[in-house]
């Protein structure tokens, strides 16, 4: 395609039909679809495998159990997908979620605020942590890894300090546990926590794919300097991206607290790594610029399914962790293979 002479530009339509190019693009599009499809196919394969391995696996109560246990990690993973697509990383998810749960406990149990107000305030405390992360990263230019590592420790400590190291129970807050344990759809045995996960997935997918924030997350993750020169207010969008992740962190805190009927200040560390694992298994690149929300949901379900399936097969918990680690390696390696030298 270099045979353009100096006499003038060739009509674009001529080049548009160049066969070798068309082939390249079709392969490109196919590859992108393959990425999602493979993650989904692995999930199906896993479900098939476990249902053959154990009769109790494919029962409604076990499936809802998987979904319920996936909900919290899944919600965290959805939020952090935005961060990772923008080329950042978020390590304060787990303990930040815990602090948000403890704050919800403070608002509802200790201060006796009305349910809705307390829940919203709890979610906002997550958003506040995300906002601080965003400010530290975008304004003070602290690398995301360091900024969120610091926030991870700060949140962990504050959760213990504020709660006096003891769990805060929601026994006196009527209706609170319904947030996770209730069943909104009559006649269908599906806990609300799962519905929240699905609703947030749909919402998150629209925001990532269709909103300015989502597009700019891709732009920043692809090439931050070019995004800046293009007139995108990179600082502002980064702050918003981390704040959004904080909102998801807050929601996860409320959902977890409602599921356990308590805010457990010592719980939460390690959730961030499982969430990041879900994002990566779902095909989002840690280098930024690539990723999808649906992929993240599938990734979270894979993590949940493997954990649950292994437990049902009575494989000790220590080994479950080892196997999740292997799943991450396999997922990322196959992704590399698929992209080949193209990546």
């Amino acid at each position, binding site marked *: 395609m270099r045979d353009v002479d100096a006499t003038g530009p060739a009509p674009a339509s001529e080049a548009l039909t160049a066969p070798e190019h068309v082939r390249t693009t079709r392969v490109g599009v196919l590859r992108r679809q393959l990425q999602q499809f493979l993650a989904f196919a692995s999930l199906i394969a896993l479900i098939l495998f476990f249902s053959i391995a154990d009769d109790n696996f494919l029962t409604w109560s076990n499936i809802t159990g998987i979904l319920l246990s996936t909900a919290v990690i899944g919600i965290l993973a959805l939020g952090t997908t935005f961060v990772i697509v923008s080329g950042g990383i978020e390590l304060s998810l787990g303990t930040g979620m815990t602090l948000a749960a403890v704050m919800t406990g403070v608002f509802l149990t200790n201060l006796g605020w009305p349910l809705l107000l307390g829940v919203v305030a709890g979610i906002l405390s997550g958003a506040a942590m995300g906002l601080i992360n965003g400010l530290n990263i975008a304004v003070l230019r602290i690398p995301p890894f360091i900024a969120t590592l610091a926030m991870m420790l700060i949140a962990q400590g504050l959760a213990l300090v504020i709660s006096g190291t003891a769990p805060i129970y929601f026994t006196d807050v009527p209706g609170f546990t319904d947030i996770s344990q209730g069943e909104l759809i009559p006649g269908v045995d599906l806990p609300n926590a799962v519905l929240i996960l699905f609703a947030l997935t749909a919402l998150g997918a629209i925001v990532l794919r269709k909103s300015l924030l989502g*597009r700019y997350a891709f732009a920043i993750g692809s090439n931050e300097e070019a995004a800046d020169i293009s007139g995108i207010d990179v600082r502002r969008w980064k702050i918003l991206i981390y704040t959004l992740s904080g909102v998801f962190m807050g929601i996860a805190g409320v959902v977890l607290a409602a599921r356990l009927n308590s805010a457990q200040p010592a719980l939460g560390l390690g959730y961030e790594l499982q969430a990041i694992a879900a994002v990566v298994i779902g095909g989002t690149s840690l280098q930024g610029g690539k990723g999808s929300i649906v992929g993240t949901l599938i990734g979270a379900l894979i993590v949940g399914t493997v954990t649950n399936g292994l437990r049902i097969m009575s494989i000790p918990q220590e080994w479950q962790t080892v196997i999740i680690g292997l799943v991450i390696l396999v997922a990322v390696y196959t992704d590399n293979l698929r992209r080949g030298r193209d990546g």
Partner: protein
Amino acid sequence: MNAQLVRVDGVSKTFPGVRALSDVSLTLDAGEVHALVGENGAGKSTLMKILAGIHHQDEGTVAIDGRVVEIDSPTAAQDLGISIIHQELSLMPDLTIAENIFIGRERRRGFGLFVDDADLNRRARELFDHLGIALDPRAKVGSLLVAQQQVVEIAKALSFDARIIIMDEPTAALTESETHALFGLIGDLKRHGTGIIYISHRLEELAAVADRITVLRDGACVGTLAARDADLRQVVSMMVGRQLRGQTRPPSLPGDLPTVLEVRGLSTKSLLKDVSFSLRRGEILGFAGLMGAGRTEVARAICGADRTDGGEIFLSGRRVRVSSPADAARLGIGYLSEDRKRFGLMLDQDVAFNIVASDLRRHVNAAGLVRDDQVRQTARRYVETLSIRTPSIRQRTKHLSGGNQQKVVIAKWLARDCEVLIFDEPTRGIDVGAKEEIYSLLRTLADEGKAIIMISSELPEVLRMADRIAVMCEGRLTAVLDNADADQETIMTHATKLVPGGGVAA
């Protein structure tokens, strides 16, 4: 003496969307300097990378010492005695000279756990003595001048006992005396039977250094001639593929064009001093000057990418504050960086994404969601009007050729309706045909009323395109010339000598 070191036979290489080399043949004898010339994108670096084991050819063979070899990795190239000195230096600034030269080949001590620094420095010392280089091997590379780093690169190449050395624009960053020293070094290497493939844009120096010259154009060999009796004009016309016509100049513009952008007293802490000029509607203002004169810095200061320490910017007579590229974009100032891949494009995203990147806000509906149908429409419109050659708007921009990538960046700013467009080296890395298209595009944009700044290091390009020419030297604006009054000599005079009194008001 005249044993054949390298024989490249019918080599072709295709990248997605670009045929980079087609049926190229070339030989290199022992003790010979074989110059490889051609416009940017002619295929020089691809050929070089094939010899260095970075790429592998699709067709054709490479023989070393008469034996056909597969150079499938940089290590394999090293083992065959091929060393490459890249244009972009690939040294690690925080390591010492000796550490850089022998990286990966350190002698160990203490059960192979520790690097024997004394041995490292001694070996580097020996190498430098042999080559007559006066540098301290223990100095950190980051503390060296660019020219000294170049010398380190050459020493490193020689430390591999390379018999075949590929030099990519080795004199680009060197002063005249350093260039002479380098030529002396090359003379020594020749006497030792080393073969050198010498890539350069500076045709004048080829007569002094090269034995043979091979011209590449659009990925193909145009011809090989003996350097001794080569006519440089002939070489140039072989490179561009046509006889050089008498220099065309832009027709003079009407004198009453309204001023769009005015810059007064622009200064930065690091470089710029009191830069003042004005830019009129429909005009192309060229910025000429040597590397490091501050042309890019002026552009970055105007578009808010770098902090300024003084100066005022007026747009259509109104004073504006530009503290970020986002501000500049809002005000209608677009900057197209010389480094497209770093500052211009999101290479992993598709053409449509890149074209609307700056203007996405106007492609959302009331609910704040991006209207992809509109995005596609905008993208298609610009692909058509700018003749961007891409199989579809979904093609990732990294698969486009340099010229088409540049057009995507231009489209991005046109979509944003920028009144002021600042092009920094708009034709760098673009092949000849596409260059012509970019030129006519710039002229069309100016005729449509855009105000254009074009920074360029190629004087013929400046003279051909710019209505007026601003010349910079060491952070100051030393002249603003009307095209009719300018020629290469006048520009170079202003670019090399600091005219007393500094800034010239335009």
